């Protein structure tokens, strides 16, 4: 399959462009996504193509536009609600949790809410505590929601197209530090199903489960570990709800060691769920405890010297992997 290189941001844009072209029920609503093309400048020109009725600039009303998404989805549309910073999903928790995620169940399967909540995650831009959070674990706790955390342009495009076509509410988290990163995507149309993890690098000595941008930290850690004879298998869940537990457990059973890396805060975060799933499912195969590496449990500080210390990175991954593999 012939490929071409595009950025993560372009991948997001292409997915939306293709789905809007193919399905008139798809529209997007959010702040500064129209003429401005979003604050991350990934949608430049999209409003010219689809008009202000389908690329809707909203007031600064996160709760309101999320609710509008729910109502539009219930009545035959496929809204994409754009929440600029993941930190602001704190304002749409009621609409997503009490309405979007529960409507299908509460109505005994009659009503559907096929909407996508697109938002961001990831620190590292000196944006301080209210513009740097990775809050993807919250909606993963809510039955009825699906939660996607792509790590590459290829996954981002294929998964977003699937999310838009999904009949359920899907929260889609984009690491804002990755928008400019380039990667290969197929030339022709493709979809990546929700709920399937992918092995990003094969290895026999340790399983490193990594999420979103942490996949790249894990991969560079794996390179360094290879030099000391440790072959790490890097597994990317890609969708954290539903979670592809089979693949995660199989990998850990094979390598007998596991480390889970995520940029959300460690306490009560994604690493806890995944680590406990592996520790249970691979219990009789493990040579060492399953370790977790989440963001430091502090609000993200502004000063870059401090901020850097809170984010999981390759060196930290290497250090833990070495200990687990008795190479420390």
């Amino acid at each position, binding site marked *: 399959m012939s490929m071409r290189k595009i950025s993560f941001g372009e991948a997001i844009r292409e997915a939306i462009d293709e789905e809007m072209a193919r399905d008139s029920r798809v529209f997007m609503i959010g702040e500064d996504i129209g003429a401005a093309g979003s604050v991350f400048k990934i949608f430049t020109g999209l409003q010219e193509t689809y008009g202000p009725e389908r690329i809707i600039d909203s007031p600064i009303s996160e709760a309101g536009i999320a609710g*509008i998404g729910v109502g539009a989805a219930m009545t035959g549309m496929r809204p994409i609600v754009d929440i600029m910073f993941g930190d602001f999903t704190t304002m749409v928790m009621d609409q997503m949790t009490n*309405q979007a995620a529960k409507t299908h169940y509460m109505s005994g399967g009659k009503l559907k809410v096929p909407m996508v909540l697109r938002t961001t995650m990831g620190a590292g831009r000196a944006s301080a505590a209210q513009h740097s959070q990775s809050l993807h674990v919250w909606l993963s706790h809510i039955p009825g929601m699906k939660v996607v955390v792509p790590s590459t342009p290829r996954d981002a495009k294929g998964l977003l197209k699937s999310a838009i076509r999904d009949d359920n509410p899907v929260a889609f988290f984009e690491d804002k530090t990755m928008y400019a990163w380039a990667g290969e995507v197929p030339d022709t149309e493709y979809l990546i199903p929700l709920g399937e993890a992918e092995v990003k690098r094969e290895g026999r000595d340790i399983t490193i489960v990594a999420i979103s941008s942490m996949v790249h930290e894990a991969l560079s850690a794996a390179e360094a570990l290879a030099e000391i004879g440790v072959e790490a298998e890097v597994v990317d869940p890609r969708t954290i709800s539903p979670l592809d537990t089979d693949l995660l457990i199989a990998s850990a059973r094979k390598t007998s060691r596991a480390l889970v890396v995520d940029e959300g805060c460690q306490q009560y975060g994604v690493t806890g769920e995944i680590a406990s799933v592996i520790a249970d499912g691979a219990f009789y195969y493990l040579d060492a405890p399953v370790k977790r590496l989440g963001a430091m449990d502090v609000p993200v500080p502004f000063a870059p010297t401090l901020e850097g210390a809170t984010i999981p990175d390759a060196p930290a991954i290497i250090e833990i992997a070495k200990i687990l593999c008795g190479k420390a």
Partner: protein
Amino acid sequence: MAIDRNGSPAPDAEAWLELYERMFKIRCFEEKADDLYTRGHMPGIAHLYIGEEAVAVGICSVLRSDDYITSTHRGHGHCLAKGADPYRMFAELLGRSDGYCRGKGGSMHIADQETGNLGANGIVGGSTSIVAGAALSAKLRGTDQVAVAFFGDGALGQGQLYESMNMAQLWQLPVIYVCENNYYGEYTPNNLTIAGEILDRAKAFGIEAQEVDGQNVLAVQRAAQTVVERARAGQGPAFLQCTTYRYRGHHVGDVDRPYRTRDEEEHWQQNRDPLQNLKQEMADHTQVTPEVVNELETAVRTEVERTAEEALSAAAPSVSEVGLHVYA
């Protein structure tokens, strides 16, 4: 279409009788629901609409079945007025699989897609943005459907309502905001919770707003007719404050009602009962005889009783259904 005597054409006996029948059906349904609760047949609680029948019936009398409504915790009246089947409603109240939600929703979550009812809602104000989404959907799909939000005076405390009104007016969405002002939110009189003038809260967004006697079904119908026609013609949202009163407690278990006086309750029931009002109108201005009304009442009550008893013998959902409908 019935128009009251201040309008023209002349009184339409049949239409008025139909309005009466709908209101009476709601009252019987609610009295029966209360009875089912008191006799220990109904799990949980329910919020009865008794006393407020003219609001739901007046508004819904000018709606098409493909128009949308969003409802509240006090939703039985809206549901029936929009055309729902009492049997399936009772079955839902009793948690049976014949219920509108197969027993998964209960009193506070009945939804009925066929009649455009997007659902009762347990979140006060929760549907105020959903309704704008349904209206936006209608607009994007190029239909002339309108969307009506029923909500109580308590929902005026929720910021989401203002976010919704701002966007509905900006985008000229076909939304009718129907505030059922019954002067109390749970056990608190709303002079403690509402500052300023209710109508001004809609006018501030440039939305046409008026107060209506919610105990006079003909007045409600007339007001609704105008604003629904405007909305259908693409002339934007409107806000109706319908003053009304709930005869019973906040919910079926609220029997003492220390927060208000018996005198106040009697005043409304004696002088402002929506059923008595319309009966009088019919007596004064049509040929409809008391006998006809009595026959109709007996027929309706018998039918409601029958459906309730039928629902009592309906099957509960099998436990195997608990995991169904989480995802579409």
